[in-house]
C-alpha cells in the first residue's frame, strides 16, 4: 500500500477557485474510512435513502464503492419496474442543484456528503406515454407528473388542473361515490400549486364524469392530456444570453428550447444542432447554417457557474442520445491528458427500451396506488413491489463474492453460468449484450472525474444486478435489441493501418490507455488487471489534467518522486471533426474543463478517435520499464506523423487567431508557433533526463511554461430566433493541437507572464527515508501579479502487509506534514492502495 499526500499552499492565490469538479479530495474528507480496509471480509456499507414517487422512502445499505447502477437496480426492483430506462436517481447538492446519479460511476464519487439521499424521478419523459408497455410504468409517470404539476414545475391552466385532478381522483378512488365522497374528500389531494375551493369543486364535478374508468384508463387519460402541455418533459436551466438577460434553456425530447420569462424565443431541434459544448460557465451550441446561410453559427449562453454548464451539457447529451439515437454513441476514448468530458449517455435509448419492452411478458403486476395524497400527508413506507420483497432481503448490500454466492443458490443455472463466466476471466467476463452495454458505459464514462477504475467490481456489480432479477426480468434485460459494437467491432471499421498503429500505441503507452483497453478483449486479462492498477495511479493526474486547459503534465519516477510540471499548453478538446477548421472550440487559461459532444458526426468521430489515440499521453508510472515507455513514446513511429499533422493545423489556427482574435493574445500565438517547432525534442530530452534522476535531492529546475494558445471564443450569442439570420457567423477558431510544451530552462519569459496560468519558478524534489518513504516535491510557481505560490507535494509510500494499520500511518503522515510546514495547508490527499493481485476484488 502506498499513500501519497500532496500538500499545497496558496499565498494569496487569486485564481478563482471555482470548484474543480469533484476531483480533488479535500483534506476534510481524509478520514481513515476513506482508506480501503485491508481486510476483504469487512466491507464498508453506507446507508442509502431513496425518496420514491409515492412519497415513501426506500432505504438500503450499499457497499461504499457501489456504482449508481446498483442502487438504481435495487430501487427498480423494489418498485417492480421493468421499463426503467425512463427513470433515474437524483441527488441534490446545495439544496437546489439537482444532479442525476450516473449509473456507471461509483456513488461516492458523485455525491460528496453524507447521508446518501436520492430521489427517484422520471428522467426522460416519454413523448407518447401510450407507447409504454406496462401500466405500472405509466403509473409512475403519473406520479411524477402529479408532483410536477402540484409543485408548479409543470404549469397548466385552471381547466387543465381540474381535468388532470379529476383523472387522479378516478385513478385513486375509483368512481365518484356521493355517499363516500363528501365535500372535502378532495382536499386530501393536491392538484395545483394554488388550489382553490373553486378548483376542487370543478375537480369533483369532472370526477363524476369519469364513471367507469379503471385506474389504468384514468392514468392513460391523465397522460394523454399532460403530454400536450407545452412544458411536459422540459428540463429547465437558468442562463443568461450575451447581453446578460435572464433566460431559461429547456432541454426536451425534441431539442433545446430558449425561454425568456414564459415566452419561447427560440428553439433548436436536435437535427439542427451540430455540436454541444461547454467551457467554464459557458454553454455553446453550434447550429447548422440556415437555408441561405453559409456558415454554421455558434451560440453561447452563460450559466450561473461551471457546474451548471456541465450539468446542462450532460442533460443535453443524454436527451439527444435517448430520444434521437438508435443506440448510444461510443464516448471518446478514455485517455489521459485529454481535456474534456468523455461523458456519454450509456443507458438504453428510447428505441432500445421500446424494443425491449415489447418483449415483456408478464402478467400486469399488482401495485397499490397510495400516493397523490397531499404532500403533507405522511405515508408509511409500504412497499409497492411486494412480490420482490423477500428476494430483495436475501441480497445483502455487499458486493463481490458473498453476494455472488447467494445468487447461485437462488438463481437458475443459466444465470450461474453467466456469473461463472464472468469470474473466470476476471476482467472481461462472457458478456451478454446487456452486460456489454453496461460495461461499455462504465468504462467509457471515465469522464473527467477520473475515478478509480475497478473493473472487477464492475463485473460483480453487474452480475449481481443481472442475477438478482427474476427469470422473467432477465429475459427482458437480455433482449436488448442492438448490442453495441464492442471495441473490436468498432475498430474493424477503421482503416487497418490506423488500427495497428493505434494498438501499438496503446501498448507502448501502457497504462495510458489501460482503462479503455480493458474492455477490448478478454484474452488480455492479465494486462488489464495490471493496467488497472496503474490507471489508478494515474488517476490523480487525470484529476488535474482533465480539468484544466493548461494541461498539467506530470512525470514521475520509480522511486516515487513526483515532479509535477505544470505547463501551459493548449489542450484541445476531445472530439473534433477532421475538418476542424470549421469547428469551434476555444480555450481559456482557466482551471476548467470542457466538454464536447457532436451529435451527428459519427463517421467522422471514427477518424477523430484514431487521431486521439495518437496523442501522446503522459502519466506517472509505477515501474521503471513503464518509464521507458514514457520516454520512448514521443519518439515512437506512431507519433511522428500525427504530431506533425497537428503542428500544421495548430499553426494554421494560430494564424487564424492572430487575425481574428484580440491582440492581447497575439504574442501567445507566436510563442506557440515557436514552441510547436521545438517542443518535441526538448521535451523528450528533458523528460528523459528528469526521469533518470531518481533520487536527486536538491535539483532545482527552472521550468518555463509557455502560455497556451488562448483563443477567445467568439461569443455569438443569439437567443432570439429572429435575429439569427442577421448574425454573421464567425467561426470559433479551434486550436486542435497536441502541444505539451515543456521547456526546462531559465525563466526567460517574454512578456506573457501576466497570464493567470502561472510560471514555475522552481521545482525541487527531496526524498527522505523514514518509517515510510517520503518524497517531497517543492514547486514554486508564479501566479498572477507576481505572487508566488509554493506547493509541496509529498509522496509517502507505506509498505507492509496487513498488520500495519494504514489508517494510523496515514494519519501520522498527515500530522507530520502539518508539523513540518505549519504555515501551509493540506489541500489534497490522494491515497492509492495497492495490494497483491489476490483473489479479492477489492483493490
Amino acid at each position, binding site marked *: 500500500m502506498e499513500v501519497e499526500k500532496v500538500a499545497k499552499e496558496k499565498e494569496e492565490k487569486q485564481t478563482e477557485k471555482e470548484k474543480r469538479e469533484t476531483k480533488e479530495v479535500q483534506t476534510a474528507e481524509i478520514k481513515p474510512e476513506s482508506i480501503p480496509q485491508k481486510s476483504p471480509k469487512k466491507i464498508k456499507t453506507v446507508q442509502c435513502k431513496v425518496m420514491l414517487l409515492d412519497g415513501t422512502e426506500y432505504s438500503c445499505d450499499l457497499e461504499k464503492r457501489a456504482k449508481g447502477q446498483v442502487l438504481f437496480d435495487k430501487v427498480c426492483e423494489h418498485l417492480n419496474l421493468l421499463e426503467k430506462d425512463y427513470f433515474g436517481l437524483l441527488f441534490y447538492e446545495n439544496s437546489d442543484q439537482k444532479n442525476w446519479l450516473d449509473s456507471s460511476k461509483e456513488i461516492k464519487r458523485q455525491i460528496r456528503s453524507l447521508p446518501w439521499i436520492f430521489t427517484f424521478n422520471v428522467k426522460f419523459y416519454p413523448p407518447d406515454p401510450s407507447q409504454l408497455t406496462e401500466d405500472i410504468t405509466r403509473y409512475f409517470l403519473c406520479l411524477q407528473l402529479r408532483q410536477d404539476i402540484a409543485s408548479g414545475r409543470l404549469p397548466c391552466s385552471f*381547466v387543465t388542473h381540474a381535468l388532470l385532478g379529476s383523472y387522479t381522483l378516478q385513478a385513486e378512488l375509483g368512481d365518484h361515490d356521493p355517499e363516500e365522497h363528501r365535500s372535502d374528500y378532495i382536499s386530501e389531494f393536491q392538484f395545483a400549486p394554488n388550489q382553490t375551493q373553486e378548483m376542487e369543486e370543478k375537480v369533483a364535478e369532472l370526477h363524476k364524469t369519469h364513471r367507469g374508468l379503471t385506474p389504468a384508463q384514468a392514468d392513460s387519460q391523465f397522460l394523454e*392530456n399532460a403530454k400536450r402541455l*407545452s412544458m411536459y418533459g422540459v428540463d429547465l436551466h437558468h442562463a443568461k444570453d450575451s447581453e446578460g438577460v435572464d433566460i431559461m434553456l429547456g432541454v426536451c425530447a425534441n431539442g433545446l428550447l430558449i425561454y425568456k420569462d414564459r415566452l419561447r424565443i427560440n428553439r433548436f*431541434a436536435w437535427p439542427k444542432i451540430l455540436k454541444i459544448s461547454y467551457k467554464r460557465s459557458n454553454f455553446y451550441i453550434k447550429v447548422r447554417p440556415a437555408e441561405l446561410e453559409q456558415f454554421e453559427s455558434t451560440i453561447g449562453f452563460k450559466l450561473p457557474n461551471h457546474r451548471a454548464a456541465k450539468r446542462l451539457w450532460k442533460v443535453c447529451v443524454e436527451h439527444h442520445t435517448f430520444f434521437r439515437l438508435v443506440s448510444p454513441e461510443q464516448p471518446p476514448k478514455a485517455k489521459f491528458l485529454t481535456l474534456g468530458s468523455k461523458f456519454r449517455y450509456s443507458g438504453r435509448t428510447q428505441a432500445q427500451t421500446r424494443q425491449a419492452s415489447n418483449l415483456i411478458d408478464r402478467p400486469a403486476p399488482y401495485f397499490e396506488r397510495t400516493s397523490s395524497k397531499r404532500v403533507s400527508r405522511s405515508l408509511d413506507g409500504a412497499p409497492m413491489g411486494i412480490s420482490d420483497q423477500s428476494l430483495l432481503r436475501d441480497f445483502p448490500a455487499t458486493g463481490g463474492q458473498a453476494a455472488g454466492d447467494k445468487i447461485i443458490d437462488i438463481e437458475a443455472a443459466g444465470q450461474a453460468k453467466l456469473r461463472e463466466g464472468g469470474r473466470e476471466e476476471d476482467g472481461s467476463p462472457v458478456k451478454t449484450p446487456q452486460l456489454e452495454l453496461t460495461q461499455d458505459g462504465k468504462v467509457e464514462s471515465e469522464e473527467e472525474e477520473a475515478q478509480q477504475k475497478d473493473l472487477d467490481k464492475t463485473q460483480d456489480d453487474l452480475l449481481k444486478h443481472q442475477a438478482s432479477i427474476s427469470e422473467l426480468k432477465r429475459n427482458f434485460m437480455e433482449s436488448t435489441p442492438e448490442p453495441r459494437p464492442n471495441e473490436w467491432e468498432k475498430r474493424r471499421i477503421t482503416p487497418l493501418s490506423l488500427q495497428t498503429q493505434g494498438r501499438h500505441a496503446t501498448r507502448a503507452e501502457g497504462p495510458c490507455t489501460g482503462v479503455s483497453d480493458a474492455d477490448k478483449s478478454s484474452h488480455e486479462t492479465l494486462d488489464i488487471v495490471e493496467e488497472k492498477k496503474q490507471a489508478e495511479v494515474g488517476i490523480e493526474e487525470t484529476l488535474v489534467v482533465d480539468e484544466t486547459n493548461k494541461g498539467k503534465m506530470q512525470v514521475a519516477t520509480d522511486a516515487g518522486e513526483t515532479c509535477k510540471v505544470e505547463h501551459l499548453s493548449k489542450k484541445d478538446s476531445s472530439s473534433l471533426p477532421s475538418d476542424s477548421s470549421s469547428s469551434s472550440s476555444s480555450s481559456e487559461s482557466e482551471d476548467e474543463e470542457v466538454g464536447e459532444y457532436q451529435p451527428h458526426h459519427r463517421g467522422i468521430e471514427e477518424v477523430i478517435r484514431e487521431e486521439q489515440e495518437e496523442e501522446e499521453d503522459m502519466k506517472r508510472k509505477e515501474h521503471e520499464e513503464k518509464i521507458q515507455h514514457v520516454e520512448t513514446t514521443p519518439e515512437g513511429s506512431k507519433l511522428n506523423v500525427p504530431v506533425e499533422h497537428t503542428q500544421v493545423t495548430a499553426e494554421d489556427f494560430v494564424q487564424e487567431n492572430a487575425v481574428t482574435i484580440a491582440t492581447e493574445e497575439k504574442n501567445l500565438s507566436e510563442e506557440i508557433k515557436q514552441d510547436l517547432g521545438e517542443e518535441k525534442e526538448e521535451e523528450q530530452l528533458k523528460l528523459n533526463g528528469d526521469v533518470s534522476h531518481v533520487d536527486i535531492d536538491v535539483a532545482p529546475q527552472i521550468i518555463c511554461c509557455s502560455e497556451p494558445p488562448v483563443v477567445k471564443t467568439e461569443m455569438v450569442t443569439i437567443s*432570439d430566433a*429572429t435575429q439569427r439570420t442577421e448574425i454573421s457567423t464567425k467561426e470559433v477558431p479551434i486550436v486542435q493541437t497536441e502541444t505539451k510544451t515543456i521547456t526546462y530552462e531559465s525563466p526567460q519569459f517574454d512578456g506573457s507572464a501576466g497570464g493567470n496560468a502561472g510560471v514555475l519558478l522552481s521545482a525541487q524534489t527531496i526524498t527522505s527515508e523514514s518509517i515510510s518513504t517520503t518524497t517531497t516535491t517543492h514547486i514554486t510557481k508564479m501566479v498572477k501579479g507576481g505572487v508566488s505560490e509554493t506547493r509541496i507535494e509529498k509522496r509517502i509510500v507505506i509498505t507492509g502487509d496487513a498488520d500495519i494499520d494504514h489508517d494510523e500511518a496515514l494519519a501520522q503522515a498527515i500530522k507530520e506534514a502539518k508539523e513540518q510546514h505549519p504555515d501551509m495547508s493540506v489541500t489534497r490527499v490522494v491515497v492509492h492502495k495497492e495490494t497483491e493481485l489476490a483473489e479479492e476484488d477489492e483493490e
Partner: protein
Amino acid sequence: MAGLGGGSAAFGRCTHAVVRALPESLCRQALRRAPGPEVDFARAEREHQLYVGVLRGKLGLQVLELPADESLPDCAFVEDAAVVCEETALVTRPGAPSRRKEVEAMKRVLESLNLNIVEMIDENATLDGGDVLFTGREFFVGLSRRTNQRGAEILADTFKDYAVSTVPVHDALHLKSFCSMAGPNLIAIGSSEAAQKALKTMQQMSDHRYDKLTVPDDAAANCIYLNIPSKGHVLLHRAPEEYPESAKVFEKLKDHMLIPIANTELDKVDGSLTCCSVLINKTSEL
C-alpha cells in the same frame, strides 16, 4: 370535456361569435397605416352585414353583436380586444391608446358567456388580438407596434397549457395581417418577404410541423377557418374579385367549404377578416 386542446379534431370548433357594429367615425378616424382611399361607409356596412350573416345564418353560430361606439372608430375590430381559447378569455390592452376603451364592452359580453376572464392590467403591456395566432397546439404572438413582450408574457401566463412563441412582425400591422389558420394543421401565409420570414420563425419555434398554404397576397392569407359539426371544414376567405390569384389557391382546398367574403372597405383601414369577430367555443354552460 374535450380536454387539453382536444387535438386537431376539435380545432376550429365554434359556438359563439362576438362582433361589433361599425361606427361612422370609422371612415375618417379609424387608424390606418398609410393614407389611402376613403372608406365607403355604406358599402362597408353591407360587407360587414354579409360577414355577420354568414356566421349567424350560414354557419349557425350564436352571434353576439355589440353596438357601435362613435367615440371608438376602430371598435368593429373586436379581435384585438380579446383572445379566447377554450374557456379562458384574455381581455387585452390594445397597443393603440385610442382603442383601450374598446375592451370594456368586450369584457362585459365575455362575462356574460361565463368565461374565465383574465384582464391585462399591466400598464407596460400591450397586446392586440390581431397579433395572436393560435394553431390549436400553441400560440404565436407577433411582436409588432401594437404588441409588446410584456403583453405576450401575460398571454403566456394566461394560457399556461400552451407554448407561446414570439415572432417579430415588421412591415405589417399585425402578425395575422399576412397569415392565419386555414385548417387544423394548415397555416395560410402571404408571399411577402415579411410573411415568409415570420413563417420561418414560426416553423423553427414549433415542435409541430404545419402544412402551409401560400397565397400571393398577404391580405388574402387572413382567412377564417371553422369546424362546424354539420358542415365540416369551413373557410371564409377573401373574394376572388379582390384577390383573384389568392382565391384560386383557396379553391384548391377540396375538403373545405369555401365562403368568399368581400372586405374591400375595411381593408382600407387595415381591417381583415379575422379582425371583425371573436370566436368562442362554449362546450359547457357553467
